[in-house]
């Protein structure tokens, strides 16, 4: 059975998350295992046996890391989708809706660039308002925006 440090390093290697998130998760798990081992020690087990029992009750590092990854990867995927949405809307507005309105003859305004920029700025609110992990949202938004600008 691995020691506490070995178990946590093994878990850390399997997490594949950004450093601050990983450190918070490991801190929480360390706290759990230390307290759990303390309880076993209070029942008469040696410190090594206590930590081994605490780790056994906690579960395999691979399984815990996999479940934790799923929580955070799902969230990051949602952030990317939310970030893609405003850019996709802006592009659809510029290339699909405006040309369609112009063809119908019902649109008399100037289609570029003020309207597109205003719409893009308004759409900027979407990733920030919908994503709890707003940094991912804005990072992905910036990425898709650069692609959109390059296409214009």
């Amino acid at each position, binding site marked *: 059975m691995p020691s506490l440090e070995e178990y946590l390093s093994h878990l850390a290697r399997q997490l594949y998350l950004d450093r601050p998130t990983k450190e918070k998760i490991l*801190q929480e798990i360390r*706290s*759990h295992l230390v307290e759990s081992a303390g309880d076993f020690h209070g029942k008469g087990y040696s410190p090594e046996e206590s930590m081994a029992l605490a780790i056994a009750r906690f579960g395999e590092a691979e399984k*815990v890391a996999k479940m*934790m990854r799923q929580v*955070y990867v799902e969230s990051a995927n949602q952030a990317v989708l939310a970030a893609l949405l405003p850019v996709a809307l802006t592009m659809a507005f510029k290339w699909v809706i405006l040309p369609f309105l112009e063809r119908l003859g019902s649109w008399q305004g100037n289609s570029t660039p003020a309207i597109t920029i205003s719409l893009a700025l308004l759409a900027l609110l979407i990733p920030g308002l919908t994503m709890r992990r707003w940094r991912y949202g804005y990072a992905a938004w910036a990425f898709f925006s650069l692609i959109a600008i390059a296409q214009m």
Partner: protein
Amino acid sequence: MTDLRRGSTKVLVLSLLAQEPMYGYQIAKELERRSEGYFDFKEGTLYPLLHRMEKEGLVKGAWQVVEKGPSRKYYHITEEGERILEKSAAEWATFSQRLLKILGQETEPAST
């Protein structure tokens, strides 16, 4: 643990947190104590659940410094969590009543 019991962990954790803020190890111990070992699970599976619920806005975690020993992250239930708990508890009550009825072991509803 069966799928049925596994599926109920979320509502059990929310119901504990509705009574008082708790940290992960405390939640694991309380679940074990109150269910007399029936809801036995690998304690490590509790943290992905707590983090998922935190992302969904059902609970909110806050670190608290402890004099002796490592800091603990206490989880508080949010208003959204209370709403989900109420809804899930009602669903589980209906489920268990219907099941007992089919099994012919219907119990009298508790008088209020």
